[in-house]
Every structure is written in structure tokens, then in C-alpha cells.
């Protein structure tokens, strides 16, 4: 349940964080690859919008970087399967992209050959009404797990 009690968590990158429970996303099935991780704090840094850091509540060292898919593709063709919709407890009026309380985040990785990439094939879909999240696999074959991000200057 979403409450207002603060959650104290330690991050290897941000130090000690005292976050409102509303900033915590819950992954009922854990995050793929990290199945025991069910809770991540969504952190935004002023000046770095629309980036979202996903800091594990349980593991100080686990922190992912993500951004809303609309940042690079305003008309992102998100599909949500009935299983995922059930896990998110989506209400009938929560329809992509009209609903303002649905968020789709692409996770950023750095590939040795391609450089910075975003996972558009499996975005994290967040129901902002209850803060539940799932990684929603897309059936669309044109969406890449490693979509190359053309960064402006310094290589990563």
C-alpha cells in the first residue's frame, strides 16, 4: 500500500536517503536478472530531467539509470500484455498514451561496442496510482534491447 511514512535507505551513490514512500516503486515479480529486488526508489536530480535513477532499497550498490521512452520517441507504441496489466492492477481508464499516470522507462546500459544504449524492447511500465512496476516485454520486433543513444560529446 502507498503510505506517507518515510523510508530510509542507503545508496552507494547518493549516500543516505530519506524518501517518501511514494517515491518507491514496487516490482511484484522483482526485476528480471535481480528477482529478489522488489523495491526501487525513483530518484530525479534537478538539472538532469528527465533522467530517473532507480536505486534498489535493499542493495546499496544496485542503481540503474533510465528515462521515459517519450524523451526520444513521443509516440512510443507501448503494448501492455494482459498479464502485465494484471500485475500493475491497471484500471480500465489507464490506457497508453492518454493516461497521465502511466510511465514507461527505458533502462540505459553501456555496451562495449555500441556505447550507451536504451532498452526499448523491454521498458519498465509504472502505474503511478499504486507505484507498481513491471518490465513489459514488447512484441514489436523493431524495438531494440540495445537502442543506440547518440551522445553529443564525451564518450562513455
Amino acid at each position: 500500500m502507498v503510505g506517507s511514512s518515510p523510508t530510509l535507505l542507503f545508496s552507494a551513490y547518493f549516500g543516505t536517503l530519506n524518501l517518501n514512500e511514494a517515491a518507491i516503486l514496487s516490482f511484484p515479480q522483482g526485476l528480471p536478472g535481480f528477482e529478489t529486488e522488489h523495491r526501487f526508489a525513483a530518484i530525479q536530480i534537478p538539472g538532469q530531467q528527465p533522467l530517473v535513477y532507480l536505486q534498489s532499497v535493499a542493495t546499496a550498490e544496485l542503481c540503474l539509470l533510465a528515462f521515459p521512452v517519450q524523451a526520444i520517441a513521443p509516440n512510443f507504441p507501448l503494448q501492455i500484455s494482459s498479464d502485465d496489466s494484471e500485475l500493475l492492477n491497471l484500471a480500465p481508464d489507464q490506457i497508453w498514451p492518454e493516461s497521465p499516470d502511466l510511465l514507461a522507462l527505458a533502462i540505459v546500459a553501456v555496451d562495449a561496442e555500441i556505447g550507451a544504449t536504451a532498452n526499448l524492447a523491454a521498458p519498465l511500465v509504472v502505474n503511478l496510482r499504486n507505484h507498481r512496476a513491471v518490465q513489459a516485454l514488447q512484441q514489436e520486433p523493431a524495438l531494440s534491447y540495445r537502442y543506440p543513444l547518440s551522445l553529443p560529446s564525451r564518450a562513455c
Partner: protein
Amino acid sequence: MLILRRRVGEAIAIGNGIEIEILEIGPSKVKLGIHASADTPVQRKEMMRASQQNRQAAELTAQTRRALAENLSELFSKLPAGGTDKNFEARYSGHPSKKENLEPA
């Protein structure tokens, strides 16, 4: 490939520590219960690619993440508001089924 027929409530055992039980059979889906030790990774097969990608994403060092975040902020600040990344448009517009969705509103 070994093929077995099972009913609801029946199970199969794999090796010594893994049991798969048929919990429910629907018109197009089966619900399975899997008993395995906590250190045995069990996941839907199609999630394997996502798992691999997530593990790679988690490997970033603090320094790389910081540089990456700065670069990404810069990238996003250069995109026109509500504009599509040219790269995405170029790759995606070739796909007839979704083309209309990607036209600017």
C-alpha cells in the same frame, strides 16, 4: 524431447530438487507451480534477454554513470520539445504496421 501428459494437481520432478506442478489449465494457458531451491534461477524464457540487459545496465561504475547522466541530459536538452530522436524515427518508420503512430501529432 520428452513429452508427458499431466492433469491438474499432478507434477513432474526434474533432478533431485525441482518439481513442477500443474495448478490450473485454462483455454489457452496453464498455471504452473515451481518448487526449486532459492539459488535456482527460474524465469519465463522470454525474460532472459531482459535479465541479461538489466545485469549489464547494473554494471555501470559511479564515474561512468555520472558521465552518462551528463551526456544524456545534454542529448535530451538538444531534442526539440516533444520531438522524436531522428535515429528512432529513421529506424522505426520503416515498419509499416506502426508508421502512422510515429507521425508527429
